[in-house]
């Protein structure tokens, strides 16, 4: 019987630290679908939060001054692995974003139009930056494509 001796060496890509984008590197090249120069911030209510691969997802409702409600789907740049690295476990994230939570969402609209956005920042009513997304907020405004 042979015994195998294992040597494990764990290496990380140094390139991650010198990325000039200043954002977490988007898996799947998703960012190209959205126009981040048109980012906006809007008040919303969480309907669902999914802590899943490949991207965490936030579903939220926005109500305009007339009382019309529109439904939105958003992906977040980090996947659960990245959230974990920043201390946002499933439990902590779920506790911060149950359905009904009032939040301020900063999002970038899709270039092709529609109600699926890139969520850049989520703040709760106390102004805390949830999930550590940390992006700069956009100008206040209603989402550009209300349906």
């Amino acid at each position, binding site marked *: 019987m042979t015994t195998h001796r294992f040597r494990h060496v764990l290496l990380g*890509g*140094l*390139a*991650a630290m*010198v*990325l*000039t984008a200043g954002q977490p*590197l988007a898996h799947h090249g998703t960012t190209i679908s959205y126009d981040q120069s048109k980012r906006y911030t809007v008040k919303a209510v969480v309907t669902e939060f999914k802590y899943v691969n490949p991207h965490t997802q936030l579903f939220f409702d926005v109500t305009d001054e007339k009382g019309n409600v529109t439904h939105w789907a958003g992906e977040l740049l980090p996947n659960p692995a990245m959230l974990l690295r920043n201390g946002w476990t499933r439990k902590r994230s779920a506790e911060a974003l149950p359905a009904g939570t009032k939040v301020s969402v900063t999002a970038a609209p899709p270039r092709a139009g529609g109600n699926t956005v890139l969520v850049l920042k989520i703040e709760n009513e106390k102004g805390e930056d949830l999930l550590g997304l940390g992006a700069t907020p956009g100008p206040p405004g209603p989402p550009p494509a209300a349906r």
Partner: protein
Amino acid sequence: MRRPVLSSISAGRAASAFTIAILILVATPPVHAQRGRGGSPPAPRAQAPFDLTGQWVSLITEDWRYRQFTPPKGDVGGLPLSPAGRQAANGWDPARDEAAGEQCRAFGAAGVLRLPTRVRISWQDDRTMKLETDAGTQTRLFVFGAPAAPASPDWQGVSTASWDAPQPPVAALAFGPPAATPRSSLKVVTTRMRPGYLARNGVPYGANATLTEYFDRFDVPGGDALLVVTTELVDPEFLSTPYWSSQQFKRETDTSRWKPTPCTAR
């Protein structure tokens, strides 16, 4: 660094071009290494990646009380002075400087840009950039390549200029080098300065000091431009560690406010 470039292919070429024709991606050298057929490399002036010329005025915010006014003798703040430097600073005597005709001690290359001043930058020729200050009416010449050594050290020393581009960061996701070329700066290294003051209250630098400056231009929304001079002064005699500072200037389109004044020791 090489990156692949699509080359165009003509199907009608002779059979001897077969090898070139089927291979679409050819590594090419970086752009700035290319030369005209049999010609000399482009002059520094032509190579300038951005425009520094024009008139600029000091924006003094950081270290305001050390730069806008002459601080009291011995008040050196956080400057990394050696014991010899501290002793010299405590022995500052402006009357002695005036008597010796050395009012310009604080207006030498390692000190003049710390003073409130207007600055005019222009090209004297294709390989010499000129920087003039109205404070102290000083002129600095930045020579690309090897400058001529002067007969004896003067207040502004000898400055060697180059366009400095830092190593780009290692690219993520790409086999080849990163797509973005990092910005260049104007790098100026000055030596052989006559001993002077890096602060107005007699904080000294000596004849063996080396001044390294990086000039960068930033364009801000609204049409303004900022000039930032990032400086490292190394003086084995008077400084215990290198002294790093940065000086900001704002572009001035109204050039009428240029007011040359003589050096003062106080």
